[in-house]
């Protein structure tokens, strides 16, 4: 009876074990707390407009302010040149960063891992075709192409930017995953799976996927950072979605209104936030890798 219960909660047990390993990792813990802080910011972004429409990041304007003001009791981080609250903009920026970073990275990981595994496992013609295609996309200057597209079609919606980032960022992952798959394919346990009668689909998803997943997750954290940076760059250059406030957009406003060197309270917070959020994703990735790869673990005491 007890045994059956233990088996049922096996998944839960595994999760808790993984969690404790993650939490023991200092780098992972710092990354997690940083990320939680940003998540809290993203959640809090819904609050300021509820207090007073004046705090709406896009449309709210403080009627008493006529130029950019430094931090004050009414505006904790100050205002921009037309009197919009910087704190509420910063909070909304966190929301956009999560949205862009995680969705773009997740999509590019799914594309990259699938294509990499298929190319590596199938080999021969399919491998060559997929990898040459990946090379073609990889050598395209993605920022330039996105800039061209947005100048062709006018301002791009934030979701289209996300899709474009992920479509341009999968080849790097696909190459890494393919290389791993090639070496995994030669390992005896794949032969053993074939001897047991496993289908190609089973071998790819049950034996190769878990072995490449830590690498994919590590690259996902890199892709989160690069997606946030690409979005920030686009926004800074004036090609962001004009209906959203992102940190890149805030930087662009600082620049365009000529406050670059006059208003450090306006310039620094979005810059620091971009750096810290990318760092926190990277730290999380490193710690996650350790949890997911049993070989990196320390042998635990068994009773």
């Amino acid at each position, binding site marked *: 009876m007890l045994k059956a219960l233990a088996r049922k909660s096996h998944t839960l047990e595994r999760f808790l074990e993984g969690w404790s390993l993650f939490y023991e990792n200092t780098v992972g813990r710092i990354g997690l707390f940083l990320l939680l802080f940003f998540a809290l910011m993203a959640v809090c972004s819904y609050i300021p407009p509820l207090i007073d429409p004046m705090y709406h990041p896009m449309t709210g304007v403080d009627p008493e302010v006529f130029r950019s003001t430094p931090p004050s009791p009414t505006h904790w981080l100050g205002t921009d040149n037309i009197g919009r609250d910087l704190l509420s903009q910063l909070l909304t920026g966190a929301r956009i960063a999560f949205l862009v970073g995680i969705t773009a990275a997740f999509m590019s990981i799914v594309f990259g891992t699938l294509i990499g595994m298929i190319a590596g496992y199938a080999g021969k013609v399919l491998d060559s075709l997929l990898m040459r295609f990946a090379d073609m996309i990889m050598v395209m200057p993605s920022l330039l192409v996105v800039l061209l597209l947005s100048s062709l079609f006018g301002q791009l919606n934030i979701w289209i930017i996300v899709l474009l980032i992920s479509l341009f960022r999968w080849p790097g992952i696909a190459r890494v995953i393919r290389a791993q798959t090639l070496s995994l394919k030669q390992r*005896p*346990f794949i032969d053993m799976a074939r*001897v*047991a*009668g*496993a*289908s190609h689909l089973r071998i790819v998803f049950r034996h190769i996927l878990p*072995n490449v997943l830590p690498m994919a997750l590590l690259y996902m954290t890199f892709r989160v950072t690069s997606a946030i940076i690409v979005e920030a760059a686009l926004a800074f250059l004036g090609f962001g979605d004009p209906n959203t406030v992102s940190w890149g957009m805030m930087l662009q406003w600082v620049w365009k209104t000529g406050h670059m060197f006059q208003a450090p309270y306006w310039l620094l917070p979005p810059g620091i936030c971009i750096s810290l959020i990318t760092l926190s994703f990277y730290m999380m990735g490193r710690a996650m890798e350790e949890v997911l790869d*049993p070989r990196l673990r320390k042998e635990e005491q068994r009773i």
Partner: protein
Amino acid sequence: METKSRPTETILNVDQVHKTYQDVRSLFRKSALTITALNRVSLEIKRGEVFGLVGASGSGKTTLARLVLKLEEFEAGSIRFNETEIRNLKGKDLKAFRRKVQLIPQDPYQSLNPYLSIHDTLLEPLSIHKIGSRDTRTKIISQSLEAAGLNPAEDFFTRYPHQLSGGQRQRAAIARALVLKPEFMIADEPTSMLDASISFNIFRLLIKIQKSQKVTFLFITHDLAAARFFCDRIAVIYQGDIVESGTTEKVIQDPKSEYTRALIRAQPKFSFAKTTRPT
């Protein structure tokens, strides 16, 4: 060895099998180098016996095992298992064949997926072949682990390969081969990565399994002494050619080929008379 009953029915028939590997380096010169791994090899294994394939590294013995397991294709000849040609097996027939033939691998450190627990590793063949219900599967897994000498089986369910010693891993690999209750097992140098005392235990285990489950064994080794200990009949393979075959005692007592004689001479012997080291 003489006390064993003579089996008659042929389980595996390898007939004139030819396998070459080509080294295709250049785009314009197609085959710069062709290596003949197996040169028209023929052998016959009877149901219930232990057949030894003895040879040096690179002699083609592992290649033959891979061909019999249908992990690789071959150019000419035929391999028949239970009178069925395996070359063109596909789909359902291939799956049925896979259920009957299992491998005990050479390298216990590489042959278990590091991400699967021992329970999940042993469960996989059962779920592929849709054998039994949840409870019977658990029972089969426990039985196999215990038959392979991992007692008590439940202790090993949640362990991962990196938490086992080399000998335990090899036992887990043997247990995996056992869950399907195969008719035919290929042991490809099962002890080459283990130290001598553990090797001996593994040999004893294999003999026990062979006796209790009536499995036919193809035992691949470079060690003539191990082959003598374990096999009813042996074949000696040298650079892709079978140079000699027959009952174990006959081959060892009365070797026909020069290579077999060299192998026998190369066996280390304990000599208690020798007390000083020659300088």
